[in-house]
Structures are given as structure tokens and as C-alpha cells.
């Protein structure tokens, strides 16, 4: 990775972080009337994988989708419009945070029912194969989603048909407040999926270059040998499951040491990469201030934007 590419990636990474920090600042004004599942700590996964994917690749995600949405679409206006429930929202306020999507830019759908977009991504991969192309389709989901039967059904079918379905497991070891050890009866996801005819890779999801490398690696394998890929990326969820706060005061987990927190912070980590690549402090600051400005502007715009018309209630049910 050279400095230019790294600064480009940093711009995305920092945009995601900044947007979510802004949500945290604004949230208690109670103007964003939508549950927010913040991804702070996991930003490098979406940013890295999206970077590695072909730009046209169709992607699918979950309710914890802010990073994916911003990385894939760069649509800050539609993002905040949606969180504020405005007509300017990408989904006209009908989605809120949990269902953000932008099909035209390749983020086809996200869902707040765990696991449900995995088979949908499978169907998109089938469609590509149907057209004789077998392009990569990507599904992002949490570790909890692998407990749903639909994950195994989808993996089985993609393996059977040699579909280029990239399954990205964003593993924070938690489903809400329940640790993976209280949920999964195998010796690790990689070994559990390896009985199927798929490619499987693991990487540190807090480390953007590592994510990028792992994603590129598995995509190369999928290119050569058309099978689904399972990309297992670990990260640390800094905040509560849903909402803008930390929740270290609850017994289900302990606050890590400051040093460990820094190690698990992908923005912090990547700033060190940048420095190592020779980026100067003001270059970094420059990226940040542009992002800061953009975020402020879009939040202000969203706060002033009109709500959807009452007639919107009845539209969009059927074509």
C-alpha cells in the first residue's frame, strides 16, 4: 500500500468514525428516533472489504451497517437524512438506521433480523451465475448470525453450486451481551465451516491492512477456484449493543486496559500505518478536517430537512 492509497482509505475510515461519533453527540437530543447499532471498533472491516471487492459487487448487511453504508456509497447526505427520518433520507425515512441501503450503489439491502440477508445475497450470487457470470456477491453479518440455520443452508448451497458468495463474519464475540462461548458448540468458525467446499480465511478486523490483504487473498482464491469464501474478521465492539454509550459498567464484560483499547481501535491503528508510510501530521489533519466539515454540514442539513409528506405512508407497498 502506498501513501496515496492509504490516505484515501483513511478518508473513508475516518468518515465512518466521524459520522458515528457525531451520532453519539447528537443522539440524546432525541431527534434521531431510530435505534442505532454503532460499529465503533469495526470500521476497518467494511472499509477494507469494500475496497477489495470489485466496485460493482452487490453487497448485503445487517442493522449494524453504518460503516458498510458509508464505505460502499459515500452518501453522507442520505445517511443522516435517513437517521433523522427526513424526506431527504435515502429511504425517505422509512428505513431508519437498521435498514439503510442504496441499491443503485450496490448496497442492496440490510436487515434487522439476524442472518436474513445471507440467503438473499446467495440469491444474488445465483442470479449472476444464471447470467453466466458468477460474480462476487458479499454478505456482511455478525458472529451471532452463524448460529442461525439459514447460514448453514446458504453455505451448503453456495458450496454445492460453486457460487462466488463472500461471507464476511464480523466477529465481536458478542451477541448483544452474550459471549460466543455461551452460544457456539464448535472449536471455532473456521474449522466449523471447513467441512464445506469453501475457501476460509481469518484476520484481525481491527487492522485495516490485514483486512485488505485477507479480503484480496480470499477473492483471488475464489476467482481461481469458484467457491464461496468465508472471511472471519475479529474486532472489538467499543460501545453498547444498541445506543450511543459505553457499557463497561455491566458485568458481562470488563473494560480493557487503555493500551488494549488502542490496539483494537482501527482508526488509531491505521494512523500508525499512515505514519509509517510517511504521511505527515498535517496531511492526516487535512483529511480529518474535510471530513469533519462535511459531516457537520450534512447533519445540519438533515436537521433542517422536511419530514416526508403524510401521503408517503401509503406509497411503496406495491409497485
Amino acid at each position, binding site marked *: 500500500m502506498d501513501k496515496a492509497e492509504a490516505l484515501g482509505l483513511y478518508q473513508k475510515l475516518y468518515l465512518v468514525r466521524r459520522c458515528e461519533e457525531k451520532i453519539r453527540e447528537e443522539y440524546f437530543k432525541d431527534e434521531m428516533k431510530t435505534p442505532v447499532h454503532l460499529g465503533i471498533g469495526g470500521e476497518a472491516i467494511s472499509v477494507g472489504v469494500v475496497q477489495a471487492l470489485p466496485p460493482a459487487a*452487490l453487497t448485503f448487511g445487517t442493522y449494524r451497517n453504518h460503516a458498510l453504508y458509508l464505505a460502499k456509497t459515500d452518501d453522507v447526505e442520505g445517511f443522516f437524512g435517513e437517521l433523522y427520518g427526513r424526506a431527504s433520507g435515502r429511504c425517505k425515512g*422509512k428505513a431508519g438506521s437498521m435498514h439503510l441501503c442504496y441499491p443503485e450503489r450496490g448496497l*442492496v*439491502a440490510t*436487515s434487522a433480523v439476524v442472518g436474513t440477508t445471507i440467503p438473499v*445475497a446467495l440469491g444474488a450470487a445465483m442470479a449472476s451465475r444464471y447470467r453466466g457470470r458468477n460474480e462476487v456477491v458479499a454478505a456482511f453479518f455478525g458472529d451471532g448470525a452463524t448460529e442461525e440455520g439459514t447460514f448453514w443452508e446458504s453455505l451448503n448451497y453456495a458450496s454445492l453450486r460453486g457460487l462466488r458468495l463472500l461471507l464476511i463474519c464480523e466477529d465481536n464475540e458478542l451477541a448483544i451481551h452474550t459471549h460466543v462461548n455461551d452460544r457456539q458448540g464448535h472449536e471455532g468458525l473456521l474449522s466449523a465451516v471447513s467441512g464445506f467446499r469453501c475457501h476460509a480465511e481469518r484476520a484481525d478486523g481491527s487492522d485495516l491492512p490485514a483486512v485488505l490483504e485477507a479480503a484480496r487473498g480470499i477473492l483471488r482464491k475464489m476467482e481461481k477456484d469458484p467457491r464461496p469464501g468465508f472471511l472471519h474478521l475479529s474486532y472489538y465492539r467499543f460501545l453498547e449493543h444498541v445506543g450511543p454509550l459505553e457499557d463497561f459498567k455491566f458485568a458481562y464484560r470488563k473494560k480493557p486496559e487503555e493500551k488494549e483499547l488502542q490496539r483494537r481501535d482501527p482508526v488509531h491503528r491505521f494512523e500508525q500505518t499512515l505514519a509509517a508510510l510517511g504521511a505527515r501530521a498535517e496531511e492526516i489533519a487535512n483529511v480529518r478536517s474535510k471530513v469533519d466539515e462535511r459531516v457537520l454540514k450534512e447533519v445540519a442539513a438533515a436537521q433542517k430537512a422536511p419530514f416526508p409528506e403524510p401521503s408517503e405512508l401509503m406509497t411503496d407497498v406495491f409497485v
Partner: protein
Amino acid sequence: MKRNIQFREALSSALADEMTADPSVFVFGLDVPDHKRIFGSTAGLLEKFGPERVFDTPLSEDAMTGAALGAALAGLRPVHVHIRVDFALLGMNQIINMISNLRYMTGGQIGKLPIVIRAVIGRGWGQSAQHSKSLQGMFAHFPGLKVVMPSSPQDAYSLLRASIRDDNPVIFLEHRWLYDVVGEVDDAHAVPLGLANVRRHGKDITLVCTSWMNVEAHKAADLLARRGVEAEIVDVRSIAPLDAATILKSVRRTGRCIVADYDWSFCGFAAELAAQIHHGCFKELKAPVERVGFAHTPCPTTRPLENLFYPSAKTLVRAAERLLGLDEMDLSQEKFYTYEVNFKGPF
């Protein structure tokens, strides 16, 4: 072109014609391409369109339902087939939480969501509680789904074509006994979704029917005609969206109505019909609307109980007599439709 064909062939013809017209249409589901061809309703497709467009699946209804959605989102027009609607319950999360909602949730960004879920309902050979549900009312309850129930070969043909062409998700429910019914099918005759059909005209009482109940109603109407009662039969065909106008118009004229839905009545589509008819014909109704449906139990296997579980022409005649204040006519010499006549086991 007009042909006299069975209901099953009407279905396979509709599929073939849509697949010919549009290369994005494909048909998949458990057993779709095997030699039984879903009781013949997918016959000929594999030979004509090949295994990329006509294919089997693993036993994974949940994922395959999601996959239908994904394929539709990617621009295809999937037809997903269940040999029994009961198995669609494994895909309920996808059908309700995803398919019915998705267009709305995206604020209409998803322009089209053309998915047809075909499923077989109805009696067979001791189908038991797990292979006998209908579920039209359940599906119709959810905004975002269309629900269709053809009762003639022509409707099977035309409504299946219309369903495949529709840019919205459609649940298409086919009664197993109807598969044997022969009728004229004109492939130039289009039937849009959303319209009821007055299948028989009469002035004394309206029988509002779904699916197989239309067949029973015809038999009942013949019997009633013998004693001078003219029954009108309205085939609902489109459960959602519902063509209330045609139904209300009939009942306003006859003043008496029996709703015969092929399902349990409690909290079912029969309840919706009865509620709307009472509401819309409040002044004209001479007596309350009667509902005829399954006994409110799971479906038993043994034939004597099964015969009590399902409503029949006889049930309709008796209900009509009560509504009209007539004595019970003698039906002891009547031959009623029995499955044995047309069909021997095992399924």
C-alpha cells in the same frame, strides 16, 4: 389458441409461455425437475429450458426463499415452488420480515420485487395435519404480498402468467384436486390480478368461494336449483388485493350470503369477507352472512373424520337452506364428489 386441458397443464403452459417470453423467469424448488414434476405442473420445462432455469434445491426452504428474494433483487423473476404450502412455513421469516416489507423499507428504491411462490394445498390421500394447510388468509394479512387462488384451468393459466408478470411478490395457491379438472384455456385471454369472477348467476343467495369451494358450490347450486333457488357464485380468485366491489354488488342484490373459504374460518379470510360484506351490505342483508370452512381442529388422517373436517356441497346446501328458511331437501340419493373416483393413493 384454445385448448381443452387439465389444470396441471394450464400451469405448466403458463410457466412455459412466460419462460419463453422472458429469459429472466426461472422455476425452482424441491422436486421441480424430477419425473413427477410437481403433479405434472412443471412438466416439459426441464426439456425445454434446461437445468439452469428449472432446478431442484436442497431441503433448505428458509435459504431458498431468501435466495428467491435475492435473485429478484438482482433482476430475475423467480418462481419458487412448494409441493405443499405447509413447507412455506419454514420460509416465513423471509416471506414476512423480508419479502413483504423490503420495497417499503427501502423507500421504494427497489423498483420491482417479482417473486412468485407457488404452493399446493388441498386434500390428497390422508394428508394429515402437516400437509393440508391453505394459509391464504395468513399471507393476505401482511401488506406487500399478493395472494391468488385459481379455480379453473383458464384462471390457472392466466393468473399464473399475470403473477409472473407482476412486479410484486405473489403467493399462488393451487388445490391438488383441481389439477384434474379439464377446461377450455384460451392463451390469448388475460386475467389481471385483483378481480373476482361471477362464475354463476343467481338472484336468491350469493356463495362467495375460494379455490376448491367453487367446485362444491357449483354442485350445491345445481341441487338448490332443483327446488327453485338460484344461487350466484362469486369466485374470489384474488385474495389480496381483494375485489370487494364485485362481491358486494352481488350480495346487495341477493341479500343473502354464504362465504365458503377453503381454510379455517377463525381469523381467516372468511372472517375478512364476512366483515366486509356485513359492513358494505348492512342495509341489504336479510340475514347474517354464514361462514363455511374447515372444522376448527387440525386435519385428521382417517377418511371418516377427514370427510367431516372438510366442507362440501352438502354443507353448502344445508347452510343455504337455513339461510333461506327452507326444509332440508333429501340428499340421500345424491352422488357427491369423492376423491376415490378420480384418484388412488399414495399422495
